[in-house]
């Protein structure tokens, strides 16, 4: 009996992260359900589609639940070139202002979402066998991240591009990059920033300017930000109640089911809901950090770090932009925002983390 209990506890703790991510997924579906009752998007059935994605993700969990993450190292030789091809296709085929999708019939996917995970694995695999303190290694690392970074940046997808930078910094930091190297990189960035400003699309510059002063154009560029603030602020302490949000329901806030989903939480559940939600997410991210800490295997450690940075980056930037302390760069809130690619990548990341936790301790 005792043994059985211990086994169960173990099995729960092993799957702990995956189970925990399902709490976030469940919260996300509830919020989406509320959002789906709003106008405009009600007919599109995005809730159904999201549930479908959750099922596909769960299928992956079932298949890979016992896989060894170390198999990924070899896979990067296939996946890394493949994702570069996909990103190039998006860039060439991309129609409209910010086309990020590739379609195969009914199935659309966003290569930039998958690129994050693949870059994490590729960079981790590379650095796990070399010393970043050596200049050529640092240089090659920069190339590994730099190519997809530029492809994504040109899409243009500023948000994901920033995540790439964070991923690089995170992994490089854990891999032991020196202070000198960091300062050097920092100087390069500072010096090249005018160049960056030059390649930026007009609307990206506008967004940064709008962030500095949202009242520049309250009905145009500043509209999202202003409406987001109104939505969050009007939630008050306990919120307007589940499914009672006027701002999101009446579509004053555009894209409330994707990038601005946090507003729905803030409006309907108030500061109390926000506090609980942020703490849950914080706990989740801390759990990943624990895995980073426990993992002795370099490759596992770096991958876990990369995934942590990816989640934390999304979390902080997404919330930061919704509450107006970061420019609106258009990245989703993992597990919560509507979007298949993002959800699948998030679930795959959690599977990998769980595998790292299980296998890295075997040594």
């Amino acid at each position, binding site marked *: 009996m005792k043994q059985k209990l211990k086994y169960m506890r173990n099995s729960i703790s092993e799957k702990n992260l995956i189970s925990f991510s399902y709490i976030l997924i469940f919260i996300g579906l509830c919020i989406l359900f509320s959002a789906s009752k709003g106008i405009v998007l009600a007919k599109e059935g995005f809730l159904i589609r999201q549930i479908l994605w959750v099922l596909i993700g769960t299928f992956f969990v079932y298949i890979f639940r016992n896989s060894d993450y170390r198999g990924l190292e070899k896979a990067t030789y296939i996946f890394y070139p493949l994702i570069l091809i996909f990103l190039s296709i998006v860039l060439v085929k991309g129609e409209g202002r910010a086309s990020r999708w590739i379609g195969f019939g009914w199935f659309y996917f966003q290569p930039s979402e998958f690129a994050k995970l693949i870059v994490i694995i590729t960079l981790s695999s590379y650095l796990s066998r070399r010393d970043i303190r050596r200049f050529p290694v640092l240089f090659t690392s920069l190339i590994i991240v730099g190519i997809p970074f530029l492809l994504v940046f040109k899409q243009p997808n500023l948000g994901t591009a920033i995540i790439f930078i964070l991923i690089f910094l995170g992994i490089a930091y854990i891999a032991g990059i020196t202070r000198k190297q960091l300062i050097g990189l920092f100087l390069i960035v500072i010096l090249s920033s005018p160049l960056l400003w030059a390649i930026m699309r007009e609307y990206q510059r506008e967004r940064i300017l709008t962030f500095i002063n949202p009242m520049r154009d309250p009905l145009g560029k500043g509209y999202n930000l202003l409406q987001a603030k109104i939505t969050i602020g009007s939630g008050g302490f306990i919120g307007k109640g589940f499914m009672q949000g006027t701002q999101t329901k009446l579509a004053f806030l555009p894209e409330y089911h994707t990038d601005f989903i946090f507003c729905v939480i803030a409006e309907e559940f108030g500061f109390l809901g926000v506090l609980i939600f942020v703490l849950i997410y914080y706990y989740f991210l801390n759990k990943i950090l624990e895995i980073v800490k426990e993992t002795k295997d370099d490759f596992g450690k770096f991958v876990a770090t990369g995934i*942590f940075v990816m989640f934390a980056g999304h979390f902080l930037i997404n919330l930061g932009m919704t509450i107006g302390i970061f420019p609106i760069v258009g990245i989703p809130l993992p597990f919560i925002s509507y979007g298949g690619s993002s959800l699948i990548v998030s679930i795959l990341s959690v599977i990998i983390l769980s595998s790292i936790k299980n296998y890295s301790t075997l040594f």
Partner: protein
Amino acid sequence: MEREDFLKKFLFFFTCIILVRCFYLQIVRYPYYYQLSIKNCIRVIETGIPRGIIYDRNGRVLAKDAPSANLVFVPYDIKDVEKVIEILSDILNYDRESLRKKLTRKYINPFDRVVLKRNLTSLEISLIEENLYRLPGIFVQEDIKRVYTFGKGTAHLLGYIGEISKEQLDRLKNKGFKMGDIIGQDGIEKKYDEYLRGIPGGIQVEVDALGHQRRILGRKEGTSGNDIILSIDATIQEIAYEELGEKKGCIAIMDPRNGEILALVSKPAFDPENLISYLDERKHSEKPFLNRVIKGQYPPGSIFKIITEISALETGIIKEYDRIECTGIMEVRDRVFHCWKEEGHGWVDINLALPFSCNIFFGTVGMKLGVSRLIEFAKNFELGKPTGIDLPGEASGYIPSPYEADPLNLSIGQGPITTTPIQLLNLISTVANGGNIWQPFIVKKIISKKGEIIKENTPYLKKTVYIDSETLDILRKGLKNVVEFGTGVRAKVKGLEIAGKTGTAQRAATEIGLPTHGAFVCYAPFDNPKIAIVVFLDYGSSPEAADIAGKILKRIFIPEKMEEGNETETEIYEE
């Protein structure tokens, strides 16, 4: 290991910042953002501006409000323009191009409703509502329309209401007018707009970002404007309108004792409830929007002989029985001057010259008088000057300077001189009342809904012209004979003594040979004038005009004799 701890601290630090920021937005700034969110989703949709009722002198309703429905659209919501045009052009019977133009125009606020068509018929409403599911962004919205009891019959008198124009908006912006507001565009509706217009009512609705109405939160009824009582007698107005028939021209009827306008008709008229069909005709030569009574400027023709006669007698140029021979033709220097009667009137004195409207007689008299004196008298009788009637856009007419006119033409009212029909009505009234020039007016009283008198127009004596009683007698006798046996004989009514004068107005010297304008002014009863009439016919003859005036007088006075002291009699202002 310190590096992982750094990541932990990093995460903790920024999570704290996010929570602090949320605390600030949701707790500290809550009231501010809450107000903004309410403002976002609550909108007041105006349900029209109620206007006061316009009554005639006897309390008959001439214009009032009635509920109506408008077709409105939210520009932002019109995605499939072609489909909308396809459906609406059939239902509304609208031209596709103008519809497309209106739907695709750039609007300042694309979320605000724009009126596509006012006053939908019940058929249109049901057709649109059937198709509403295929027309996102299109709504039927309640409004107020204006109903005119006599329709075209009072078109020029009351005017019409319509959407504020850009020029008007620029002028009236400070008074709280805004785009899409309905204001009086002509006539009494325009002149007294500030009194008539009320405070708009509205429904408070919850709307989404696209302006879609989600639910109605409240309703505020509008406050009607003030009512107006006119000096117009609807019965007489109707009579005048009927008698003018299909002819182009105008009729105005006034009380010569005080300047109250009893009727004012101009044709062709427009339908004030259905303007759209007339808008294309605006440029049309028929000018349905032109109020000929106050805006038509014509040479007065022989009616001006009244002035010539008064000047001649007053200055003593001619005595009552001085005779002049009319051979039908007169040569003055190098010019040949014709009387309208080719064979001439023979030897006539002033008592016969006026009834027969002899041009040779008055031309000769005019030559003796000289241009300056004629002009002086004409100006003394306020010709060539707006009468000051309370309608917008009154024209002044034109009295030439002594250098522009020659006495022959001027003495018979031809040449560069022009007057408006209302001025001639004033002239005949002055003759009727013995020298008083009253300012014609239409609005008697403005009364608030509570019954308080806001404004009351009392008769205003602009000036009194001294006319010797002997002159007046001769003139009046002559005018009576115009109807008895002269040029205005068709105005004759059995049992009623009428004094009048015909006039054939040539538009301008260059237009000689073209059809002329026939006019007739008169007053009755002769001994105790109560009614003065002017009839002006575009391209008509003066006997026709006299005929119409006679018929009107007959209908006003003859039944009145049977039932003594009926409505027109009792209400008319007693001096």
